[in-house]
């Protein structure tokens, strides 16, 4: 069975939920092979010295829960509390996974949310913090501040018949005059309050098999679009206490917003920074950036309808 996510073909004995399916066109590169390992193996094989910290993972309250080390020869060693230890080679062709045992979080979530997007970045795609759905012949990206309602809006659009392209990270590739969005895994994370806003568990059950409970919410498999799609709109959701009604308008794209929407601000190799600027400039020229303003209690279904009408 072929597996893919974020423009990467996935191989090896470890299967990540939501990644199965016939792929569309991929990057011309070898597959990323996912293999099991133990923490002791990964630590023993990591060189003593010569590495540096390139990223830190923190909770919303600022507590350090993970770190990524880089070694010029060995690649990357990613440690994440409650998920495990993961090692990736420099070329992002091999990801070895040593999950933590007995964690309330599925270790695959770290692979989906962190390791695979990082691999896509190393392979030359630009990754932004946004969800995406298929609308018409293209993809519409959805972004919002943290806890701003992005996932609930995504869920509402899926319940209205849109097809998932990505839940939390979009992997972008410039091809000719188009920015292509490569689909992420067919997985959606929903917080408990988001599920309630969408109509409860019974309503959400229409999206797919029963979700897997995780702390604070659910993680569920959802059918996804199989291949890359041209990006047709970039929607920025802002729910504000002072807003009286839902409005959506096209505004001149602010480069700070686009550059700040990166999923990975830590990887600052010159080639990557240059590519990121290219992608953001191309997005600003070719894709309408739509600001969706709404009251705090705006029903997700109405927000979804506004996006569909404008995109």
């Amino acid at each position, binding site marked *: 069975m072929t597996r893919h996510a974020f423009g990467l073909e996935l191989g090896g004995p470890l299967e990540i939920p939501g990644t199965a399916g016939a792929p569309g066109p991929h990057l011309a590169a070898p597959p990323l092979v996912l293999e099991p390992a133990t923490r002791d193996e990964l630590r023993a094989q990591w060189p003593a010295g010569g590495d540096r910290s390139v990223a830190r993972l923190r909770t919303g309250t600022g507590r350090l829960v993970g770190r990524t080390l880089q070694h010029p020869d060995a690649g990357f060693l990613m440690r994440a509390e409650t998920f495990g230890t993961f090692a990736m080679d420099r070329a992002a062709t091999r990801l070895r996974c040593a999950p933590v045992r007995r964690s309330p979080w599925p270790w695959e979530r770290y692979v989906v949310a962190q390791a695979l997007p990082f691999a896509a970045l190393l392979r030359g795609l630009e990754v932004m913090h946004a969800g995406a759905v298929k609308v018409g012949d293209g993809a519409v990206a959805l972004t919002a501040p943290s806890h701003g309602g992005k996932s609930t809006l995504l869920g509402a659009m899926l319940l209205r018949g849109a097809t998932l392209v990505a839940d939390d990270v979009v992997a972008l590739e410039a091809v000719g005059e188009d920015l292509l969005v490569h689909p992420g895994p067919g997985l959606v994370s929903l917080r408990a309050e988001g599920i309630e806003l969408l109509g409860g568990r019974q309503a959400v059950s229409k999206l797919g098999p029963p979700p897997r409970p995780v702390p604070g919410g659910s993680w569920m498999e959802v059918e996804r679009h199989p291949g890359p799609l041209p990006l047709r709109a970039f929607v920025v959701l802002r729910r504000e206490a002072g807003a009286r009604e839902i409005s959506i308008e096209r505004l*001149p*794209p602010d480069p700070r917003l686009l*550059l700040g929407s990166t999923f990975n601000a830590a990887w600052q190799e*010159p080639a990557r*920074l*240059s590519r990121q*600027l*290219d992608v953001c400039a191309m997005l600003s020229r070719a894709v309408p950036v739509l600001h969706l303003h709404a009251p705090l209690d705006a029903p997700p279904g109405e927000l979804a309808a506004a996006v569909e009408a404008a995109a």
Partner: protein
Amino acid sequence: MSDDTSPADPALPTGKVRVPENVVHRSFEQETVLLNLDSGQYHGLNATAGKMLAALEEDGDAAAAAQRVADEFGVDVAMVRADLARLCDELAGRGLVVIDDPR
């Protein structure tokens, strides 16, 4: 021809002005963003300054760039020369352009 500038204003460079290899820039709708690849620092230019930078890159010569911008916008070239001199001075100070010694 002498510039009509006060002693405190920078003079228009006479050497070739170029963007070094470690600096990339891209145009957005309302501004131009420059990125210093060595430092990872971003800098923004408004639309007018972005046009001036584009003219500098095309001409390499600040006087020619000033004339080009003055012609395009239909404004007094002396004013453009003064603005461009200040822009070059600021960009050079930030390492975003290099001004070659004309000698």
